[in-house]
């Protein structure tokens, strides 16, 4: 069971590294789920910074926000919200979808120096 000793060390090391990482922009970007749609379903966000993303579900049905491009996966309860961090992203396009309803899709365009929309 030597691994159980190694893992905390591993985590602690990574936490120290995190201290030097870019501080997240604290004003969150809000992504809303309403009538089985993402609003907006196209977001333009700055690249190169860590961002806080609030996913707010106005529907009754729970959703699972998922993105292979961003390695993100989180359940958003019905009439609830969930906060996650994304980035720092390289400039480019990142797809996301609702794993409980694959017709619900959207994408993030990451560009240097853009101001956030909301």
């Amino acid at each position, binding site marked *: 069971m030597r*691994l159980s000793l190694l893992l905390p060390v591993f985590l602690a090391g*990574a936490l120290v590294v995190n201290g*030097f990482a870019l501080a997240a922009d604290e004003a969150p970007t809000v992504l809303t789920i309403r009538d089985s749609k993402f609003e907006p379903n196209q977001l333009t966000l700055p690249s190169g910074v860590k961002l806080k993303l609030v996913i707010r579900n106005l529907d009754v049905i729970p959703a699972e926000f998922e993105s292979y491009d961003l*390695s993100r996966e989180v359940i958003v309860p019905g009439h609830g919200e969930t906060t*996650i*961090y994304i*980035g*720092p992203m390289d400039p480019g396009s990142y797809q996301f979808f609702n794993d409980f309803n*694959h017709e619900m899709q959207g994408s993030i365009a990451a560009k240097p120096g853009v101001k956030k929309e909301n």
Partner: protein
Amino acid sequence: MLATAIIMFREVLEAALIIAIVLGASRGIAGRGRWIAGGIALGLIGASVVAILANVASSEFSGNGQAILNAVILLSAVAMLTWHNVWMSSNARQFSTDVKEIGSAVQSGQRPLAALMVITLVAVMREGSEAVLFLWAIATSGEQSLNMVLGGFGGLVAGIIAGLLLYLGLLRIPVRHFFSVTSWLILLLAAGLAAQAAAFLNQVGVLPALGNGLWNTSNILSQSSLLGQMLHILVGYIARPSGIEVVFYVGTFLTILTLMRISGKKRSEQVKAAENPG
């Protein structure tokens, strides 16, 4: 109905494939069936609890708690898979010419049976909670819900069949290669789960990303394709990985491999010493 079946199939697939590998890797160990069945049962209870917690809007659990729980259960699975592999490399090597002997030879000592249970529990709990929520969501969505629930169960059955096929496939591997194949499978599985845990910890801001998208092979093999998803589950394929995922993957892979080599070496020295006393 088909869309529902596909989503459900994907939720069940991960747990089914992991259980198939664990069943294969523990072949010949007495009592494994009971422990694995116990793991599945506890996993289903855990999945329901997680599903309920995750759907309580005001709960602390939504967001950070969810991701941290996921990371913790993934890392505990990694630790258990490590234990299993290290144990197998120190105990099973000398029996690997005859699978049946392992069962009787390892009656005593610390067998990794608890590890088998925890791995199964974790696999079922993690994907099961999503499956439960999803089924609940479609069941309450009103029209056509019966059709969709039927689709959901179709997907569940298909997922279990996929796991069964993998297990039967594993059993066809010649006995002398069997344990080296299953320990490689476990090693890659553990590394992939560790990378997933890293992504969850990064998602809540606990770990840095260390670069977003070290490479992007989505065009060659998309992670949303069935093959991409199978490889994601089995060997941890990520089409567009962040640095931290790669660090965890490689770190876990090398750690387990080193531990296996060390314990395997110790074992063969003991065997040698026993064969040539003095």
